[in-house]
């Protein structure tokens, strides 16, 4: 039976349930997941990136460094059609 989801600002996600799937231990020592601690610092260069984008009816590719010479506000948000 499908359960009704509480609608909030975070996008609902799922995950595996039930009996844990048995996984064979790796013969080699598992690579320790490197914690990415590249938190941005003020006064330092913004990491450059390229990403697909939607702009006024067109699908385009946007590179941050193309905006050198201009002020840029880069905003992240949880998802389209969320409420805030």
């Amino acid at each position: 039976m499908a359960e009704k989801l509480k609608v909030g600002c975070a996008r609902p996600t799922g995950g595996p349930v039930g009996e844990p799937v048995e996984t064979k231990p790796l013969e080699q020592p598992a690579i320790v997941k490197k914690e990415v601690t590249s938190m941005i610092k003020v006064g330092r260069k913004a990491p450059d990136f390229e990403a697909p984008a939607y702009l006024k009816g067109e699908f385009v590719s946007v590179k941050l460094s193309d905006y050198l010479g201009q002020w840029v506000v880069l905003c992240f948000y949880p998802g389209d059609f969320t409420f805030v």
Partner: protein
Amino acid sequence: MSIDSVFVHKMWVDSELSKMVKGGVPFPMLSDAGGKVGTIYGVYDDDAGVETRGRFIIDPDGVVQGFEVLTPPVGRNVGETIRQIQAFQHVRNSEGTEAAPSGWSPGKMTLKPGPDLVGNVWKVWKTEMAFD
């Protein structure tokens, strides 16, 4: 920028945002599938699989001048972002001769850092100036 595809961005603009902003969103709506860019910027929540509300001000040299990150249920203050950009622009144009004190907005006095100002800020800057 969000983890949504450019197709979802288009549908959101067409079906909702264009009803709030005439002509739709005037700036690029970026897609960050997998949160790769968000991870580098420290705003991707890999448990929830979404970006948190991060906002970065980047100057014409590509240098981050300021950022703010909020959890999803509280929205940003756009006016405050604009005020910060105006302050950074003013300070930049002064080539380091002026500084924008707390509560500064265009038209308010700036400070001119130097030996004479040490210990004397209280004479020129009043606490009320921190508030609008």
